[in-house]
């Protein structure tokens, strides 16, 4: 097996990098792939919390890189899925403890045993970001439908291009379809107009994500969650499947759809 390495990054903080990493990890592992998630946010780790694995940490990323443990020892097995692992970030060190070369080597060592290596990038454009994208075969840029987040995403795309990576793919997270419809929120089209990269997913705002994140149980596991469905679709697209983008307008569910089918004849 030769794993592909995908880095999830954004520039701006708080747009959902960690949540996306956890959800994509679970989605890929549920689909039968062997997956390892690496928390690249050294000093501010929280991927372990989102995945609900905080209490199992013994060794971390810096321990592996500095040779205090074997790679195998730092791999934390997920409590639900057999093929999902986590390498947590160190809490007590900072980003300078790791170099981009260290990350390349670490991921190289993981490639033989996994199908996917997902790397959760820290916010910002400094060392931690450089570490996170160094080993990436695929860079996923995540943004919210906000001008400031899109601006940072644009900056990040420029930096990724400067590293001569293949063109990054875009995830638009926390879209509120009804606000977009009213013209109060940037639409995916507006965002793509500025960023001009390929879209790989649109994730609707979903309260279930907040609940799931706090419980350490990614929303992908909830079959009814719309955000979970969006992440499952992204995972399929990452593996080359051609999955059509779901229209977010049908948020009002089955009855909403029925009423729309009925309505066109009347006033709309």
């Amino acid at each position, binding site marked *: 097996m030769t794993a592909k390495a995908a880095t999830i990054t954004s520039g701006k903080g708080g747009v959902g990098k960690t949540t996306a990493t956890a959800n994509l990890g679970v989605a890929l592992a549920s689909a039968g792939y062997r997956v390892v998630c690496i928390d690249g946010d050294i000093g501010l780790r929280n991927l372990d919390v989102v995945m609900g694995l905080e209490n199992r940490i013994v060794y971390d990323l810096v321990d592996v890189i500095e040779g205090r443990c074997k790679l195998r020892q730092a791999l934390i097995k997920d409590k639900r899925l057999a093929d999902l692992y986590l390498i947590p970030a160190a809490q007590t060190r900072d980003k300078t403890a790791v170099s981009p070369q260290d990350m390349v080597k670490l991921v190289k060592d993981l490639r033989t045993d996994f199908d996917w290596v997902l790397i959760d990038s820290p916010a910002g454009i400094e060392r931690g970001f450089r570490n996170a994208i160094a080993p990436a075969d695929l860079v996923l840029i995540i943004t919210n439908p906000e001008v400031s987040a899109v601006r940072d995403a644009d*900056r990040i795309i420029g*930096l990724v291009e400067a590293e001569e990576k293949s063109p990054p793919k875009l995830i638009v997270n926390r879209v509120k379809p009804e606000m977009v419809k009213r013209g109060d929120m940037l639409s995916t089209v507006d965002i793509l107009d500025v960023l001009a990269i390929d879209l790989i997913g649109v994730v609707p705002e979903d309260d279930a994500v907040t609940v799931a994140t706090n419980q350490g149980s990614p929303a992908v596991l909830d079959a009814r969650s719309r955000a979970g469905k969006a992440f499952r679709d992204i995972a399929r697209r990452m593996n080359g499947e051609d999955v059509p983008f779901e229209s977010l307008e049908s948020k009002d569910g089955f009855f909403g759809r029925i009423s729309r089918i009925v309505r066109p004849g009347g006033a709309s």
Partner: protein
Amino acid sequence: MSSGLAVKGVGDGLLMHVPEGPWDEVLASLLQTVDDGGEFFRGARVALQLDDRELGAADLGHLRDQLAGREVNLWAVLGTSQPTRSAAADLGLALELGRPSAQAREADEPIDTELPGEHAALVHRTLRSGNHIHYAGHVVVVGDVNPGAEIIAGGDVIVWGRLRGVVHAGAGGNEEAVVCALDLAPTQLRIAGQIAVSPERRGAAQPEMARLKDGQLVAEKWIDEHRRKAD
């Protein structure tokens, strides 16, 4: 060059700083330096910094001939001594270095000087947030200029795409500079000393050209401009 004879490159040639001491010795060491330099000096234009040394037309003429014999062209003599300066002037030598050439100026000080006029940088990609282009001449972008990107040009700025970042044309004070874009909607537009922000977009994007008209920044539809000229 233990003799204290310093050589440095200036815009169009070499500047040699001639140390103090008896002229015979200094002349010998200068010629020796040129001989030792071999290819480095061959064909070079040399200016001499003589400070307050006093030299007659005969000495300068001799030096020029000696250098010419070594394929070095004595071009200017710098100094404060009035007799030396008039002797040099009689020999047809320059008394100052003059303006460095356009190329040399671009390398050193990109913007605040007069425009070379003809030079342009072609940027064939989209400028994203955080990208900066500073260039003394004109800047041509084939691609978009996104919000957060910045172009500062001594001359004109032409964008074959959407211009949404910050753009400054005529940054050295050239009020003739223009900014053209297929979609002119910069965060901020500056020409020479004038600053403007884009008004709210009315209707669809059209190619426009912004320039200074009676000291005011105006943007005009390219199509209008075109028609007026055709009439």
